């Protein structure tokens, strides 16, 4: 339960400018995910919050209390921030048993042995690994090590829990289970969680808020739903969503109440209401339409507003089917639930809801029209 404010944080490694003016407020009880490709500065941000890294400039407040103030060169020690961390490597001490690993911090805090045993047992049980207490870390599987790392982090109910790609070493199925587990943990503990990942599915499923990082900057801060529906730029749009969003080149023209977009799928008009501030000043401009694969539906019979297309490939993926179709030169990916089977070369008819599309200015790459509900 704590509120974190990062203001104007800058961090260099040598000449490498790793964090560029990071501003981020994490509300009490948030599950905040820092999402972005590898090397964009997520871990560094987490380490700044934890007190393991000293930024050259910026301020950090936790619950209104100053923890970093670069102007006065004040950096409080990690142990004074009442937080806990799960490293990507887990950082389990190999020479200590599971019990001792979890108990370490409690011993440092000089709890009596009764209390220590109580806390440790509780934490282990919470992670369903009570029976592993006497083992050494190298006698555990990856998933079990991971649980120990989390148990250690929650043993003394920290106000703030920092998790650095905790699931990246697990196999797909375990990862799925742990996602549920972490979400449950967040609800039970009510702790503020800052979670680092490069996996957008993890981010979308668990978070209450997502901060998207790109090359040391935060490019978008949004709820998962909003991030998915309206990525603020082409990079984020491309990064979020699996299968990837379809991009279609188009020409935009300003008209009386909004804009008219012309592309290979036809002409669309959009109302002013849906615009963002990024709309170009020119009257005519190049733009790109983004359509999620599941927003396109396929009909086999011709219809008035439907767009004819030719089936190019057809991938069956269990609960869903991925189909690519061609409209002239344009290629589109479509996701259908179920086991629809289309012949390659077959002509189908597409229905597209224009209000569900995003429109980006080609020059700036920024979102200019939001998708409606």
């Amino acid at each position, binding site marked *: 339960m704590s509120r974190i404010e990062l203001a104007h944080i800058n961090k260099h490694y040598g000449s490498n400018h790793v964090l560029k003016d990071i501003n981020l407020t994490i509300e009490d009880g948030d599950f905040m995910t820092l999402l972005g490709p590898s090397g964009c500065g997520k871990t560094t941000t987490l380490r700044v919050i934890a007190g393991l890294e000293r930024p050259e400039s910026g301020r950090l407040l936790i619950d209104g209390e100053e923890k970093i103030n670069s102007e006065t060169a004040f950096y409080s020690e990690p142990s004074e921030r009442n937080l806990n961390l799960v*490293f990507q490597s887990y950082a389990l001490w190999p020479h200590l048993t599971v019990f001792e690993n979890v108990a370490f911090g409690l011993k440092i805090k000089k709890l009596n042995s009764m209390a220590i045993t109580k806390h440790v047992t509780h934490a282990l049980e919470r992670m369903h690994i009570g029976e592993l207490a006497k083992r050494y870390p190298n006698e555990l599987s990856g998933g079990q090590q991971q649980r120990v790392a989390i148990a250690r982090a929650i043993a003394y109910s920290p106000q703030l829990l920092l998790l650095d790609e905790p699931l990246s070493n697990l196999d797909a199925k375990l990862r799925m289970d742990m996602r549920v587990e972490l979400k449950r943990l967040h609800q039970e503990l009510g702790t503020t969680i800052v979670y680092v990942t490069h996996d957008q599915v993890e981010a979308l499923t668990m978070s209450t808020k997502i901060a998207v990082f790109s090359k040391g900057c935060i490019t978008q801060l949004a709820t998962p739903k909003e991030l998915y529906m309206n990525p603020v730029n082409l990079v984020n749009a491309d990064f979020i969503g699996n299968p990837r969003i379809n991009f279609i080149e188009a020409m935009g023209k300003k008209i009386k109440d909004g804009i008219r977009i012309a592309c290979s799928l036809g002409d669309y008009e959009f109302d002013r209401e849906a615009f963002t501030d990024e709309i170009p000043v020119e009257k005519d401009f190049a733009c790109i339409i983004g359509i999620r694969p599941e927003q396109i539906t396929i009909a086999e019979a011709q219809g008035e507003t439907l767009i004819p297309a030719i089936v190019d490939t057809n991938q069956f993926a269990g609960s869903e089917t991925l189909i690519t179709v061609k409209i002239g030169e344009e290629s589109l990916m479509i996701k259908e639930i179920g086991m629809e089977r289309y012949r390659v070369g077959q002509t189908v008819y597409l229905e597209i809801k224009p209000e569900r599309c995003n429109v980006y200015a080609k020059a700036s790459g920024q979102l200019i029209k939001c998708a409606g509900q």
Partner: protein
Amino acid sequence: MSSKAAVAKTRIKNRIKDIVKNPYHMIILLSLISLFLLIVLPMIFMVKNTFVLSANELRRVSGKEVGDFTLYYWQYLLASKLSAAHLITPFKHSLTIAFFVTVLAVPLGFGLAWLMVRSDLPGKKWLTIGIMIPYMIPSWCKSMAWLAVFRNGRGGAPGFLAGLGINVPDWLAYGPTAIILCMVLHYYAFTYIMVSGALRSVNSELEEMAEIQGAKKMDILKQITMPMVMPAVLSSAIMTFSKAIGSYGVAANLGLRISYYTLATKMHDFIGTGSAQVGYCMAILLITLASGTIIANQIFIGTRKSYETIGGKGYRSTSIRLGKSKYSIMTVLGIFLFVAMIVPLFILLMETFQVNTGRGYGLDNLTLYNWIGRLEDASGMINYAGIFRNEAFFKALYNTVKLTIIGSVITAFCGQLLGYICSRGRGKWYGNLVEQLIFLPYLMPAVAFSAIYLSMFSRSYGPIPSLYGTFTIILLATVVKHIPFASRSGTANMLQIGKSLEEAADVAGSGFVRRMTKIVIPLAKNGFLSGFLLVFISIAKELDLIILFMTPSNNTLSYLAFEYSKEVLPQMADAISVIVLAFVLVTYLTASKITGTDLSKSWG
């Protein structure tokens, strides 16, 4: 019944055919036989020799013939009136030295390793150079440098301090204190290398985790870092003890002047001038002691599980902030390294230019005589020409170069071959056997190891003549003693090539010879080169191993320096030390430039 026998017979026949026809099997067979002949057999022989009466002691044992079984030698050593002087005292000395060297060198190496690897000490680059230099200096050169600084008037050639008018007492100049300090400045590198390797493999997130949990720096060091590198610290302590207890050069150079004997020097004494058999008994004790330490450690403590790489991705190495004290630590360390490592070498070098040692560096006391002077220009009591006019020097130089080149070529080649067997035979009986056999010479103190060869080859066996005093015996001992080291680098090299590459060629239908020449050898070339250079350096600076084989005709440089030092001709001894040092340093630098080899690997 008969058909069963026939099947069994064909089976055996096919098996033998398989072994004989397959070059790989033949190589393994030949290697095993050679290793047995060169390592196991000589050991058995030496043990046996200590129970056989020789001509020298014939008159001391009544009623026995030469060649009879006798307990005389062991009795003489272990249970005679002279035991105290010949065994107990040197034994105590050796233990004292080994104990104090371990107690001092291990913490020193540990502290240096921690500072260099984990802290944010400024000026690490320069300090590391100061720490690395001693790797390259043979230990006997260090004792020369010690003498150059601390020699007192005894024998007529005062050292640097005596020259300044400081009265250096015997106990500081010679004997245990000198020996221990010299060895500490040599053997700390064991711990430094092993512990810095271990520290580097410790993910700093483990320490950061403890920091987040509220542990103080000292607690982190004690509770997290120390336990994790403890296996490395323990094994370096064991190695240091085992090496220090059997070391000869330093103990002889600094101890014999005041008749301070250790097991190694006493053993050398016996073999050289007393009863060789008693010397062999001492060699056996020495080997038992040195290897026993290591083996006992492995049995009782076991090869402790290494604590590396638990968990998955994410490795960080961040330095620990020393705070304000870092500059004072740097200064102290810098001064220490300068005084302990650089200054003595400088004084050693300067002594080679002095007319009279300990008379300062005034122009009237500086000369090039020690390098290029002719005998007819000699002043005072000097009866040697400068080393570049000295035939003994050139002879020794020739011998050294010959031994170094031939020895390192053969050793490196055998090392790769044995490395091939070890890497491909991992987990198979022959692989394990080879690995254990080649480990044996490593366990033995060099001077005791050479005693084994002396005992075995100083007589003829049928057509094989006595090898005493020949180049062959030196070469043989040198090669076998360096094989553990060479084959370790060979194994690493071969493991890196990977079996699958070979198997791919095998599937493609190429035979063993083709596989070797087309796949393994081309790929092994680089590893071979670096393995070769490391052995080369190690042989060039060797003293302990060859000292027992020396005769006037097969002197090497290290021996010559050692002899000059014994005869209190410090300028000559120093000049030769400088040559050896320069040779070793140049080879090191070239080696690390060409092959990128890590200097620390050749240390020993």
